[in-house]
């Protein structure tokens, strides 16, 4: 079914609704994420299903709604993606293929990729054939992304990459990566970086799955040993990787608000936190006034977080706030997610620490509590968000930058990398 240029928004919406109802399974944004361990086979089956769904979307003209037609997209304005997202509400969707594959990875290729790169990869992404990861964070770096030490050395028409990247979600079932490297150690930190694309399954690239304390093995670390990348797989200019990186991180902050990704409407506001009422019920403490107040407090934080997200989103769209204001939502949601996990652990009582198989909602409260701080760490720590808010939103003085003008090789760094 081809989309004609003349299709109006209402017709599109109706066609999307019919197609979703007829072709997708009811479901939702149920990603296991960091919640407990996942069965490897089940995870691979889920990835395979998502590739199928993405392909079906592509064949029906619903993939890459806002991507240019010449790269397999539909070339439509963001309102059409919004209409499709509304149709998706309550249905399965290929979440693993949206972020980071379509945004930020495809978004970065659209802005900085060569014609050949765009033609090779973007249609493949839209068809579900290529799953991409961001090779951005490093074991020695944390939030200081521009401090990358993974090195690319020029060798004729190729580059040789060495180093390590970390916190890639699902790199073990992914195909390609966008990688930030250091190509010049004699320039200051932000000026000696270059971005490359590379296949994740190749000699010299070892993907190691990291086991989190709750048993989840979604996160990976990659070790690059003399990985050879042709110069034609470079994105942007040599030593100008921070120009690419700045836009890369802009797209990353957009997450599911990006018009480049499909995401069921409203799912971003779904309470991802613990079911405090369920915990209170299973712990048998719903008659306790203090526990009722804790359940209420958790709900307060969830609802305010969603209202705040809507407010800041609207303000950024209407340019009443800069896009840096997204850090306000990030900070609030991080702190409140941590708080609700503490509330859950308190409400569960002893069953939070020691549980039996039949203990229902209380049984998850303990491990959720152990993983509490992940909400304040992943995607940029809450401390980074506080810096952004105070400096970029409130205009308070910047933190002194150490060695801003020194060659990066002379700037103090962590003594040891992880592992």
């Amino acid at each position, binding site marked *: 079914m081809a989309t004609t240029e003349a299709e109006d928004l209402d017709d599109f919406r109706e066609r999307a609704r019919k197609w979703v109802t007829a072709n997708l399974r009811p479901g939702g944004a149920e990603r296991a994420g960091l919640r407990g361990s996942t069965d490897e086979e089940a995870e691979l089956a889920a990835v395979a299903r998502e590739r199928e769904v993405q392909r079906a979307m592509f064949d029906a003209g619903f993939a890459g709604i806002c991507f240019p037609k010449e790269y397999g997209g539909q070339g439509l304005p963001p309102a059409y993606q919004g209409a499709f997202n509304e149709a998706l509400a309550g249905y399965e969707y290929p979440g693993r293929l949206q972020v980071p594959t379509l945004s930020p990875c495809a978004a970065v290729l659209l802005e900085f990729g060569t014609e050949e790169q765009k033609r090779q990869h973007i249609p493949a992404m839209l068809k579900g054939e290529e799953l991409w990861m961001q090779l951005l964070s490093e074991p020695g770096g944390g939030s200081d992304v521009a401090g990358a030490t993974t090195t690319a050395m020029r060798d004729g028409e190729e580059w040789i990459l060495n180093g390590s990247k970390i916190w890639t979600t699902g790199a073990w079932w992914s195909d390609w990566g966008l990688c930030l490297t250091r190509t010049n150690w004699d320039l200051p930190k932000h000026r000696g970086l270059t971005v490359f694309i590379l296949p994740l399954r190749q000699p010299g690239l070892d993907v190691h799955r990291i086991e989190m304390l709750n048993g989840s093995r979604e996160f990976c670390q990659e070790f690059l040993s003399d990985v050879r990348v042709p110069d034609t797989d470079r994105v942007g200019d040599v030593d100008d990787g921070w120009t690419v990186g700045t836009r890369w991180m802009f797209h990353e902050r957009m997450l599911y608000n990006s018009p480049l990704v499909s995401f069921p409407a409203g799912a971003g506001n779904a309470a991802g936190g613990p079911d405090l009422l369920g915990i209170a019920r299973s712990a048998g403490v719903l008659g306790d006034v203090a526990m009722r107040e804790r359940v209420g407090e958790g709900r307060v934080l969830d609802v305010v977080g969603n209202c705040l997200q809507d407010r*800041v989103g609207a303000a950024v769209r209407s340019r009443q706030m800069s896009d840096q204001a997204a850090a306000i939502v990030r900070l609030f949601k991080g702190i409140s997610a941590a708080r609700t996990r503490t509330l859950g652990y308190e409400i569960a009582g002893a069953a939070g620490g020691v549980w039996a198989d039949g203990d229902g909602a209380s049984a998850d409260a303990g491990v959720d509590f152990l993983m509490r701080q992940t909400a304040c760490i992943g995607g940029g720590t809450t401390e980074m968000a506080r810096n952004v808010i*105070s400096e970029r939103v409130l205009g308070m003085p910047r933190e002194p930058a150490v060695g801003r003008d020194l060659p990066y090789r002379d700037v103090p760094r962590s003594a040891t990398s992880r592992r």
Partner: protein
Amino acid sequence: MLLEPLPDQESLRDTTAKYLADVMSSEQVRRLRDDAAGFAPGYWRQGAELGWTSLLVGEAQGGGSVSEHGLVDLTLIAHEFGLRAAPGPLLPANIVAGALSAEGAGDHSEVVAGLLSGASVASWAYAEEAVAATEPAAMACQVRAEGDELVIDGVKRPVEAAAQSDHLLVTGRTGDGLTQVLVAAGTPGLSVEAMHSVDLTRRFARVELRGVRVPSSAAVGSVGGAGAQVERQFEQAVVLACAEAVGAMQAAFDMTLAWTFDRYSFGRPLASYQALKHRCADMKSWLEGAHAVTDAAARALATAAPDAAELASVAKSFVGDYGAELLQDCVQMHGGVGVTFDHDLHLYLRRVSLQRALWGTPAEHKRRITTLLEQRGDA
């Protein structure tokens, strides 16, 4: 407050902002400390001309909103009151004006006209000692029918501006139901005793009703059947209290942020210390959250959305907890000067602290939210 007010809403807000800027400097607020009423009748009448009491009253009765949602419009005025810690019975006068002109309330047009012009003031005698404001069914005040009269017995406290009011809307029980009655000041059996308040200009009283008799026509709505209307008034009061508190939070935050730039300590501005920058970032997130949830609650209530009750309680709980924390943090960043009488900060600290305590505390609203969640699960 609203990110994108309509042009008419903007002009409503601007006229109030200009008027308050002209007549209600912080020095003037401080001077009113010793004023028995806390506001001058002329101040209130002029404000009424700007629309302070008309927004919850229908056009047929002489009122009118500037958008189709009078409560949302009114939150803009309440926000301006918060920004200046302004005096005057904004909340109770509006709740009563709205209640008296609601459908099925009976004919109270003369009283409504007085409220609209600002010539008279009315207040809502709702709260009681040792009864959570979130649980009106637990109130003790009794209203019973005797022939063509209603007889009221009970004690209400705190009642805002009771001594300055020409009429009180008294909420009480009739059997298992709720009844609302309009009682004129000076009615035999009604006594008003002044109380003390953390706020500088808002006056409150304990109102005792002993065998107070009024004609049946003084009933506002049906006798024993006013529960839904009482809940609506309560949620409106909650939203207005929040809107005012958010205005006060905004004023205190702006003042404190400016202070961190101006104040030098150990040779650098306070704004350059990361410990204080991070606290300002936290405050900013609470402030924006308070704006967001209050606006959402006002909109939900004005449009009778299904989640209006929950949003009102979420707003009151959040603004109560985090508003007070924000103000205390502002005091901490100011240091000792922040708790001196000549500094303006305490005017906002007072207003936010007052609104935290009235119309249900954060803890009471959290309990209400849990009850609403259970009801939703049962439905």
